[in-house]
């Protein structure tokens, strides 16, 4: 078993038990446990998350992608400003971009549009070094983390016959 085998497998099967991983990867449970611990300690594995399609739940959530323009700081570049932004709980993910008018893309989540507007206007935009923001509200998510969310409820995705040659 290589590190890559383990990572590729749990990326798509995070619910698998150590026993299942041991069987699929043909390794002892002890080796699997130690490998996972090592990868977690090295922050190669950063967490085990559940992918939820909130549109299909009863919970109302609003997502927005915010383009943030800013000026870099001497000796720190963009990193210190980035930290002041990503430390907010509202921020789901954040990236530094090249080739764009904005420096950062910040994905935020809130209960209402007003809550997001409040975050942008009161917390994000006033940060020193931030020179502009453009907030794009997400109307519908089609695909996330490689999983298609836009599935047709009436579509039976298992029409294979029970027994075939």
């Amino acid at each position, binding site marked *: 078993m290589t590190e890559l085998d383990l990572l590729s497998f749990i990326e798509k099967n995070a619910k698998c038990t150590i026993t*299942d991983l041991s069987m*699929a*990867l043909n390794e002892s449970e002890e080796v699997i446990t130690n490998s996972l611990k090592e990868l977690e300690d090295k922050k190669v594995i950063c967490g085990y998350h559940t992918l939820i399609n909130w549109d299909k739940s009863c919970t109302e959530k609003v997502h927005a992608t915010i383009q943030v323009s800013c000026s870099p700081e001497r000796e720190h570049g963009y990193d210190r400003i980035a930290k002041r932004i990503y430390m907010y709980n509202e921020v789901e993910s954040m990236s530094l971009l090249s080739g764009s008018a904005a420096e950062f893309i910040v994905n935020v989540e809130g209960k209402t549009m007003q809550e997001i507007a409040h975050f942008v206007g009161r917390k994000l935009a006033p940060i020193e070094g931030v020179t502009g923001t453009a907030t794009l509200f997400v109307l519908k998510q089609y695909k996330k983390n490689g999983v298609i969310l836009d599935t047709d409820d009436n579509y039976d995705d298992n029409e294979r*016959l029970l*027994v075939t*040659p």
Partner: protein
Amino acid sequence: MNMQDVLSDKVKSIAPSGIRKFFDLASKMEGVISLGVGEPDFDTPWSIREAAIYSIETGKTFYTANQGLPQLRQEISKYLNRRFQLQYDYEDNIIVTVGGSEAIDIAFRTLINPGDEVILLQPSYVAYTPGVQLAGGKEVTIELKEDNNFKLTPELLKAAITDKTKAILLNFPSNPTGGFMTKEDYQKIVPIIKESGIIVISDEIYAELSYEQEFVSPASFPEIKDQVILISGYSKAYAMTGWRLGYVCGHTDLIAAMNKIHQYVIMSAPTAAQYGAIEAMKNCDNEVVKMVEQYKLRRNYIVKAFNDMGLKTFMPQGAFYVFPCIKSTGLTSEQFCEELLKEQLVACVPGTAFGKAGEGFIRVSYAYSIEEIKEAVIKIKAFLDNRK
């Protein structure tokens, strides 16, 4: 009018498929978990689907050349060279067929005269025996043993060849056993094939689904290449079972003869599927690799699960089936599968559906997610525990 009277003797002589019988039983029951299918659970890669859709959008809805789109045959030729170092000229040595099934049929019908013998390895894919019979031939079977990992040995081959032997059909990696032949295994039988002059029909539909060892085609041995009819297709490697597209490669004279049947019976393979296949061969190697990685993990899982529950199962080197031995239960293959289905609602296929040599085994497909396999395995274990 008794319609049985109008049927041809050949058709009447063909036995119904053991798979069909079991499908009828399983399909009448609700909530069945199946490990009985011989097709990938992955969707056809999107770029292949897109290419086919685009071909229809742009009006490419005509018949193609009988042998298949020249671009596709060129891609097949390049693919076989790139993957397996085989040389086939796209104009003279390749026909695009309606699945590997058509390729097998036209190969048999091209070669067999009444009474000719064709060697089939058992257990084997369900269509081989009727294919030989419908072509007027007589099947001679070689039983492959689990003790030898379901491989063909020179001793078995020598013993089966007679003056009437016209051909042998090889299918490695094998459906249903997962048996695999390495280069060294082939080196032992190639001299016998060369000396006897028999034709090898090599069904290589599972070639890409090879795990620890590199797939080797008998056509890669120069001394017998002209004796080999290579058959493959898109169903298994590219998850394209419903597209019904395959191909056959071989000596110019054999291909020209097979094309006579193909052009009158089929005309040409479906056009949109051929455009999808061009995309598959040009740009989908990575997609195949991803699917093979998943099959391998599932194979490891299921082989260990069966061995742990006391059903001896050897580790197959290819395809997506395991062939556990169920002799320890005292049940026949059919009894085992029927009782398992009725008691635990799990469908597997009796080994006897693949010939008498399959008695004492069941075919289990692992073309399912780990979660589905795990659920089925728990039920099979409960079935065995209830018998202790």
